[in-house]
């Protein structure tokens, strides 16, 4: 009864009194313990979750529920500040940080009655696409290649969020996406990952990485659940001046999977000989599927696609170097002893940050430094305009764009490229979306020859999340693909 529940199914079980919230939380706490080897959680909020569940059951008994989804357990990426609960960004430098405030997104979840089971592992400061940069060790992907015991990466940076949903250690989770950090791990784990438009969801109380790109979103088992989560977390927040004042829609209520007459763009720049055959096949099949459901397929061009990754690797580190200047060992987090103030700063940051974070801070400092600002940072911001313009032009012709989510399916944890740039290519299909500030969703479509899930990405214009979810729902309904890994960790 409680295997691989969606939010909707869990809500029905609670409503029909087949299960109490407390029983549901206890079930999931057991699953989390059984799945310890996956290393999804940095911190399990056992006591508060059980207490919250009891309160939810009391509300149900007294007909004072906070909403349809009161009492449902979720997981929270360890990048959202949670009042009184350890928030580490999977970094040594924040390994003892307990915020005295709650992020807007997690507050919205609380106010809807959702219950946090704990904080989910991620790449350090959300920098990475393997979850291997976490100070608390890598997360293991619940998926393994057919007949093998090889451990794979779950993707990143929201690797814990994606793996926990795929392994059914929580019903849904919260992630963040700066260059693909929701969609890429969703693709690697057979889950649905939604990155909303920049400004749709408040960034207040989320540990900042690159402020002009960061956006929070859900990782779920179904498209309907993604719509439900977006209903809960989105909207204007006066604490975040970059959150949009545009009215949000009732995404889950208005979801409509009819794609008749819709125009779907197929960008030629995403086509490459390096793409695995199975990914190409899935992409083509999805195109045919939408066509037979009544959509029109239009070949489009996004000419600056290949410039997106280098643009991102200037803008994101530049913003990161500025955002991470706050970790100085004075006000919170780790402090290393030093001979004087500067020495203390330098030792604290050298000891507290991992290698990838240091690389990005140094590159970011360099591209912002006097003499190089125009050549790198300003140049990248100009190319960003060209990339955004490509999408604007495309959306004059099409309703949505269909691409693969990632250039490969999940790969081995042990496989470590010598060159950091090689890792960056994991995000080649997702990064342009962040630069343009538009929404994107990754949804599981099929398995490859190794029995690993392949994700496809849909993209729409800014604030067209409803359309995005509608098309995604159409694909999900038609393909009926069940992405459920074998639970090898429970044996």
């Amino acid at each position, binding site marked *: 009864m409680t295997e691989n529940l969606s939010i909707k199914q869990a809500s029905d079980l609670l409503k029909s009194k087949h299960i109490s919230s407390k029983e549901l939380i206890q079930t999931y706490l057991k699953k989390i313990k059984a799945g310890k080897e996956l290393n999804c959680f940095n911190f399990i909020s056992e006591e508060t979750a059980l207490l919250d569940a009891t309160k939810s059951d009391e509300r149900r008994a007294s007909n004072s529920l906070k909403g349809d989804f009161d009492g449902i357990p979720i997981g929270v990426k360890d990048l959202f500040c949670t009042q009184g609960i350890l928030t580490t960004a999977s970094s040594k430098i924040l390994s003892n940080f*307990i915020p*005295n*405030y709650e992020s807007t997104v997690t507050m919205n979840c609380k106010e809807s009655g959702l219950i946090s089971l704990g904080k989910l592992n991620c790449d350090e400061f959300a920098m990475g696409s393997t979850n291997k940069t976490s100070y608390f060790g890598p997360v293991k992907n619940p998926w393994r290649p057919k007949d093998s015991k090889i451990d794979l990466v779950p993707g990143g940076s929201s690797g814990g969020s994606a793996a926990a949903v795929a392994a059914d250690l929580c019903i849904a989770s919260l992630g963040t996406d700066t260059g693909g950090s929701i969609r890429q791990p969703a693709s690697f784990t057979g889950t649905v990952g939604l990155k909303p438009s*920049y*400004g749709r969801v408040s960034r207040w109380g989320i540990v900042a990485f690159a402020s*002009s790109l960061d956006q929070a979103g859900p990782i779920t088992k179904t498209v309907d659940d993604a719509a439900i989560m977006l209903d809960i977390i989105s909207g204007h927040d*006066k604490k975040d*001046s*970059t959150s*949009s*004042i545009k009215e949000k829609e009732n995404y889950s209520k208005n979801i409509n999977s009819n794609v008749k007459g819709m125009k779907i763009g197929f960008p030629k720049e995403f086509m490459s000989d390096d793409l695995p055959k199975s990914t190409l096949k899935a992409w083509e099949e999805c195109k045919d599927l939408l066509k037979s459901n009544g959509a029109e397929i239009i070949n489009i061009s996004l000419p*600056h696609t290949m410039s997106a*990754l*280098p*643009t991102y*690797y*200037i803008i994101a580190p530049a913003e990161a170097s500025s955002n991470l*200047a706050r970790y100085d*060992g*004075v*006000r*919170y987090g780790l*402090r290393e002893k030093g*001979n*004087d*103030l*500067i*020495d*203390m*700063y*330098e*030792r604290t*940051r*050298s000891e507290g*940050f991992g290698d990838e974070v*240091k*690389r990005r*801070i*140094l*590159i970011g400092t*360099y*591209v912002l*430094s006097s003499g*190089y600002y125009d050549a*790198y940072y300003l*140049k*990248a*911001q*100009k*190319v960003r*305009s*060209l990339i*955004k313009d490509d999408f604007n032009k495309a959306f004059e012709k099409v309703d949505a764009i269909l691409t693969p989510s990632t250039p490969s399916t999940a790969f081995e944890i042990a496989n470590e490229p010598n*060159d950091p*740039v090689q890792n*960056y290519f994991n995000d080649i299909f997702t990064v342009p979306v962040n*630069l343009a*500030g*538009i929404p994107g969703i990754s949804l599981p479509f099929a398995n490859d020859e190794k029995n690993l899930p392949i994700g496809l990405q849909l993209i729409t214009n*800014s604030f067209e999340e409803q359309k995005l979810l509608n098309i995604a729902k159409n694909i999900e309904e038609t393909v009926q693909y069940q992405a459920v890994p074998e639970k090898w960790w429970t044996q």
Partner: protein
Amino acid sequence: MEFDKKNLLKLGKLARILIKDENLDSLSEDLNSILKFVDQLKEIKTDHVDPTSNSLEQILLSRKDIVEKINETEDILENAPEKEMEFYVVPKVIE
């Protein structure tokens, strides 16, 4: 520019990150590789293109200046590595 030992140490100073001698070689190799990768942007023509610093097309919002009781000194100091009375303690900065 190539990152050599000298300018890498200078960059470390600017970023307030102590770079240990044993990490210099691998770090300069990594950073040179990243720089080479992003250098490909130089080939793109951007004359007469305005920069985009943020994709949100919205005027900056203002809100009423009302004092709220959040971020109280005592709560904030809970996370301080070293404190005394109502202050953060740092290594001596004045001779």
